């Protein structure tokens, strides 16, 4: 029982914060909450100026502000998770456990997984979608602006809960210098059971922080599901009448399918986490041998876990499909097939979970059927790649940073995708499962495709968001470095897997040293590249050249000046019409509210 107390306390604090949040907002007329904030509410707020300073960011329900908050939060989480990655690769420079001890190493790869999957990728994509999806649709906001805000504000406390062990460790270390009792802080260690949390290990580990982390993950799942519902309702109900399903842009399609996957997968994760929490603290036997057995956890977890893989990657595919044509000077090739392939991936993703469990002694007939579906899901993935290449064929390619990102993503996707086919083949998977091959395979996607798509988006919409231009030369160099770093880091891991090196080994046999050092070198290149991106973003947002012409990418001449850029142009013109406001022209201003969405729906 004792080990639940920190979790309960943290949950209580979270609830108190929420209650305070509502209390703060309750000065608004109550009736505007009744429909959860549809267009009428927004109209009601049009006259209201946003509060100045920091209070604005804590109280905002504007989709663009929340989008930026999501992106900032996701980026911060990414940097934290990347620090974990750097720690992992530093440890693996030498075969023995010389830098961190094994427990620290186990904790670091566990939290690396949690942070990157739950607090980096999905929040950043949610942020991008928050910002641009209503603009792409021509809606004035998401369907439920307040739910949008709640969904975001649940994330920071859940991150703190999941990573609390490290925070308490640091506090304990700092406070421990003073003559006070720090046993409470020391009781909470960083979680070290692997992000897959396999029972019975995760039940038997004594560390009370695990229970806190489970609550944190549950909370983040609630937040993710709320955001997903918001997107689904927005796409269905907030489109202007002339925007039929056939005219819906590709990014919105992908967000729609992703949100559907979230809606079906995350509630299951939530229940599963609660079952584990009960097993740990209240003596239930869901996953005990005399109860459901350890395999129950794996089935439930991967039934969520495999759709999760596509929840991570589908928005990246959407961004690639959206941005690529803009730099090819022509429309997306096979738009309809790309939409079909996205839906096909979404459906098939629920039928492949057991391919994570081929080595558990499952019935071979079951294994064979999961192999068949896992191979089938490669077809829609390949279709996307071919369609992207066909979009570039005969086009006019402008090698700006966003396009370099996308070409890089396409090239890592080829290797990352084909290596996945080997893992779908049961006999080959039996040898490669739980080796570094698997790590190499999925990192080619989660480092190769996903961040490259995000960075492409960050450059593509940077002028629209900040009103300034980034440093294009630095951006090109950074992108190329990221692509090289991805291959240098993860190709050696594929070879290591073939040589038999298991994953999650902080200590490894000496014959694997060379390839590990090459991989670490690549990881440090990735680190440098991320740093360059960060410098470029921050510096350019502060002092980059101000954008005067909304058509930054010459989209008008090829007829691809889409709604969000039209919105940007209207805003620039409106500002030019007024007296040039003082201060930072890049920041959001109250005028953004006044733009009538129906005016720019024509393009």
């Amino acid at each position, binding site marked *: 029982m004792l080990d639940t107390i920190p979790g309960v306390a943290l949950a209580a604090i979270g609830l108190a914060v929420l209650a305070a949040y509502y209390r703060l907002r309750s000065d608004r007329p109550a009736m505007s909450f009744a429909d959860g904030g549809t267009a009428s509410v927004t109209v009601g707020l049009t006259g209201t100026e946003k509060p100045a300073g920091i209070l604005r960011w804590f109280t905002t329900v504007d989709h663009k502000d929340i989008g930026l908050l999501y992106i900032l939060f996701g980026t911060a989480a990414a940097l934290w998770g990347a620090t974990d990655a750097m720690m992992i690769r530093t440890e693996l420079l030498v*075969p023995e*456990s010389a830098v961190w001890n*094994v427990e620290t190493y*186990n904790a670091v790869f566990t939290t690396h997984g949690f942070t990157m999957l739950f607090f980096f990728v999905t929040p950043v994509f949610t942020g991008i979608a928050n910002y641009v999806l209503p603009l792409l649709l021509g809606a004035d906001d998401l369907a439920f602006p307040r739910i949008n805000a709640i969904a975001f504000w649940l994330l920071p406390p859940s991150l703190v809960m999941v990573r609390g062990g490290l925070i308490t460790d640091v506090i304990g270390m700092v406070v421990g210098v003073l003559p006070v009792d720090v046993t409470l802080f020391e009781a909470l260690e960083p979680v*070290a*059971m*692997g992000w897959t949390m*396999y029972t*019975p*290990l995760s039940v*038997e*580990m004594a560390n009370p922080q695990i229970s806190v982390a489970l609550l944190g993950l549950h909370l983040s799942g609630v937040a993710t599901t709320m955001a997903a519902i918001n997107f689904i309702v927005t796409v269905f109900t907030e489109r202007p009448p002339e925007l039929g399903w056939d005219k819906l842009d590709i990014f919105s399609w992908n967000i729609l399918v992703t949100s559907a996957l979230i809606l079906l997968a995350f509630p299951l994760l939530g229940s599963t986490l609660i079952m584990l929490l009960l097993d740990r603290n209240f003596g239930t036997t869901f996953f005990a041998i005399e109860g459901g057995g*350890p395999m129950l956890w794996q089935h439930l977890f991967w039934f969520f876990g495999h759709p999760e893989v596509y929840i991570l990657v589908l928005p990246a595919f959407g961004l690639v499909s959206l941005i690529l044509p803009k730099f090819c000077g022509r429309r*997306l*090739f*096979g738009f309809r097939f790309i939409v079909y392939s996205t839906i096909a991936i979404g459906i098939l993703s629920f039928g492949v979970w057991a391919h994570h469990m081929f*080595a*558990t*002694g499952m019935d*071979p*007939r079951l294994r*064979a059927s999961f*192999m*068949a579906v896992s191979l089938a899901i*490669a*077809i829609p993935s*390949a*279709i996307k790649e071919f369609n992207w*290449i066909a*979009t*570039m*064929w*005969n*086009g*006019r*390619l*402008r*090698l700006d940073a966003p396009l370099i990102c996308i*070409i890089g993503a*396409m090239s890592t996707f*080829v*290797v990352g995708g*084909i290596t996945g*086919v080997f893992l779908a*083949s*049961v*006999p*080959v998977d*039996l*040898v490669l*499962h*739980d*080796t570094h091959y698997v790590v190499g395979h999925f990192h080619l996607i989660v480092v190769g495709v996903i961040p490259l798509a995000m960075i492409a988006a960050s450059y593509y919409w940077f002028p629209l968001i900040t009103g300034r231009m980034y440093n294009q030369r630095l951006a090109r160099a950074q992108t190329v470095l990221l692509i090289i770093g991805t291959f240098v880091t993860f190709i050696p891991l594929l070879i290591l897997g073939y040589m*038999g090196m*298991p994953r999650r080994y*902080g*200590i*490894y*046999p*000496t014959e694997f040293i060379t390839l590990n050092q090459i991989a670490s070198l690549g990881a440090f290149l990735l680190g440098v590249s991320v740093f360059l991106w960060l410098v470029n973003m921050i510096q350019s947002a502060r002092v980059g050249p101000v954008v005067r012409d909304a058509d930054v990418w010459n989209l008008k001449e090829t007829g691809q000046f889409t709604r969000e850029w039209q919105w940007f142009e209207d805003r620039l013109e409106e500002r030019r019409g007024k007296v040039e406001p003082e201060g930072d022209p890049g920041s959001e201003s109250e005028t953004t509210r006044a733009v009538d969405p129906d005016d720019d729906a024509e393009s």
Partner: protein
Amino acid sequence: MRGARRTAVIVAFLAALAIGAVPSVAVAASVTEQVISRLNRQLLYLAVPIAVLVEAILAYTVWRFRDNDEPEPTKENRQLEITWTIATALVLLFVGTASFYVLAQPTVSTVLDDPQRNAEPGNAPEDAVEAHIVTEQWNYTFEYPEENVTTSESLVLPENRTAYLYITSEDVIHSVHVPELGLKQDALPGQYNLLRTEPTEKGEYRLYCAELCGRGHPEMLSTVQVVSEDEYERWLENPESALNESEANESSANGSATDGGP
């Protein structure tokens, strides 16, 4: 179109080069390893050229159409879409069929020929070696129930004889992973999983735990010693010492020296 032909030649050359890069295999150390690595090689012969081809087309497209002066508007081409969908499906159908044949081998999937799914120990045929691998945090115990031998040193198996390995765990999930013999089977508490193989090459092979099992996970290593039939019989008589002299000769020959843990 001249450019296209030149590209085709370059791509063909690259593909040939890539096939040459597929590693040629050493002698298989077990029948399991033999069938799996043959399958893996078949897949590589297919996958590496496809990967090189697609990457080459991608690179060529970027190089050829960068700052292109005469862009053409996108024309839909349903036939092309259907063609590459079917082509991908055919490749994957081959992968699936080839994998299924290997999966159906008794040395790869141990339950297929057993309708009762009886993986309980004690069902090994007379002429096979039956060994139990009991895992716990963080070591392996190898039991030979018929011979009344129990050891934690290493799993000793005779060459060219079928081995039935019954794997279980005393606590959390572990795994028996012997990459050089092509073996991997998770060890789950409360149940036995059967791994069936036949080692064909004498030597010492490293055995890893491949499922995260706590603090001692990366040091949960052991070895599998494949020895001649005579030597195996001698070892069963005296499990403590007899293997040592032959081990010194073998280990240097096959390159998989003792574990590298500190």
